[in-house]
C-alpha cells in the first residue's frame, strides 16, 4: 500500500507543479488586467502589455505553418452532401456569416469548407463609393489607421512595427534605387515621392466569418510583388495587441506601386487558419509552401519590356483572396 501511494505521489507531482504554476500565472495576469482596468477607470492611459521575447519565441516554435497546411488539406476534402448543411450551418452560427449576401445561398452547392470560405458576394451587396479616393479593400474591422511617424507603423494603438522590416529593403524600382543612392533620409522619406506629401496607413482585420476576397482600394498601378514567407501566428486583435511586430513575423504578400499621389501599397498578411494568399493576376505566386527560409523574401516585377506600366487596377476591382490553410 505504501509503495503504491509513493507511486501515486510521484505520478501526481508534475501535475501538481503544472497546476500550481499555471494557476499562479493566470492569477498574476488577471491581477495585472484588474490593475490596468482600475487605472483606466481613473483616466490614466495604460500602455498595452506586449509579450516578452521568450513568449514570442515559444509561440513561434509551434509549427503553425504545418498546422495551417494540414488544416487546408482537411478542408479540401469533399464533404458528402448530407454533411454539408450541418457543417456549414455550424460555421455560419459560430462566426456570424450573413449568407443572404452570398452569391450562392444554397449550402449544398459548396463541396467543402474551403470553397464555402471563398464564397463570392452578390453583385449589389457592396456598392463601391464613388466620391472618395480610397475605399476599404475588404470586409473587416479597423484595427488602426493614421500617419506613419518615425518609420514606425502601429498595428494597434501603442504597439508598433518597423516600416522597413515590414516592407523589406527599398529596391523595388530602378527609380527608387537611384533616389536611395542620392538621398540620405529615412526609409519613410524614401517612400514619399512628392513634396508636401505624407505616409498614411490603415490595418483591417478579417474575422473568420467575413467575406475573404479583397479588392483594389484605389485606382493605381501595381509594379511589384514581394512575398515574405514567415510564421503563421494568429492575427486576431488580441494577439495583435500582445505581440509586437506581429505583421513582420507572419507570412505576407506586399504589392507596391503608384497612384496619382505617389507611393501606394497593399499587403495581405496570412494567419494560422488562413495561411495562403492568392493574387488573381499573379500565377507565379505560391504562399504557405513547405520550402521556407527564415527572413527571406521573393521579389517579382510586373513591369516588363512589353508592359512598362505594371498592372493597372481600378478602385473596387477584384484583386485576390485568402484561403484556408
Amino acid at each position: 500500500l505504501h509503495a503504491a501511494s509513493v507511486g501515486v505521489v510521484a505520478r501526481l507531482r508534475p501535475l501538481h507543479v503544472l497546476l500550481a504554476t499555471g494557476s499562479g500565472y493566470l492569477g498574476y495576469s488577471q491581477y495585472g488586467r484588474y490593475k490596468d482596468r482600475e487605472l483606466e477607470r481613473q483616466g490614466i492611459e495604460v500602455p498595452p502589455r506586449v509579450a516578452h521575447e521568450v513568449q514570442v519565441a515559444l509561440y513561434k516554435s509551434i509549427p503553425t505553418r504545418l498546422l495551417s497546411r494540414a488544416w487546408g488539406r482537411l478542408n479540401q476534402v469533399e464533404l458528402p452532401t448530407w454533411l454539408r448543411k450541418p457543417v456549414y450551418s455550424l460555421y455560419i452560427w459560430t462566426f456570424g456569416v450573413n449568407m443572404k449576401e452570398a452569391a450562392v445561398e444554397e449550402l449544398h452547392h459548396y463541396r467543402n469548407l474551403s470553397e464555402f470560405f471563398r464564397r463570392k458576394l452578390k453583385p449589389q451587396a457592396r456598392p463601391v463609393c464613388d466620391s472618395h479616393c480610397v475605399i476599404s479593400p475588404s470586409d473587416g474591422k479597423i484595427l488602426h489607421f493614421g500617419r506613419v511617424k518615425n518609420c514606425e507603423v502601429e498595428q494597434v494603438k501603442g504597439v508598433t512595427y518597423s516600416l522597413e522590416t515590414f516592407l523589406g529593403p527599398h529596391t523595388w524600382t530602378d527609380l527608387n534605387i537611384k533616389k536611395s543612392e542620392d538621398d540620405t533620409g529615412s526609409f519613410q522619406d524614401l517612400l514619399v515621392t512628392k513634396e508636401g506629401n505624407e505616409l498614411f496607413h490603415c490595418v483591417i482585420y478579417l474575422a473568420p466569418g467575413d467575406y475573404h476576397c479583397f479588392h483594389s482600394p484605389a485606382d493605381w498601378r501595381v509594379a511589384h510583388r514581394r512575398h515574405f514567407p514567415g510564421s503563421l501566428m494568429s492575427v486576431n486583435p488580441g494577439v495583435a495587441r500582445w505581440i509586437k511586430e506581429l505583421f513582420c513575423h507572419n507570412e505576407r504578400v506586399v504589392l507596391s506601386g503608384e497612384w496619382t499621389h505617389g507611393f501606394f501599397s497593399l499587403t495581405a498578411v496570412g494567419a494560422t487558419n488562413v495561411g495562403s494568399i492568392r493574387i488573381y493576376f499573379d500565377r507565379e505566386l505560391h504562399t504557405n509552401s513547405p520550402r521556407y527560409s527564415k527572413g527571406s523574401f521573393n521579389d517579382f516585377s510586373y513591369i516588363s519590356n512589353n508592359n512598362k506600366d505594371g498592372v493597372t487596377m481600378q478602385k473596387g476591382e477584384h484583386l485576390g483572396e485568402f484561403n484556408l490553410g
Partner: protein
Amino acid sequence: STIVLLFEAPKDFTFNISAGQKIRFGEALGTM
C-alpha cells in the same frame, strides 16, 4: 487574416473611420 494599406497622400488627407469599427468592402476610408 489582415490587410495593411500604406500610401503616400497630401497632408490634407483625412480618414473618416474609427478604430474598432466594422467596415465593408467598398466603403470610404478617407478623402482629401
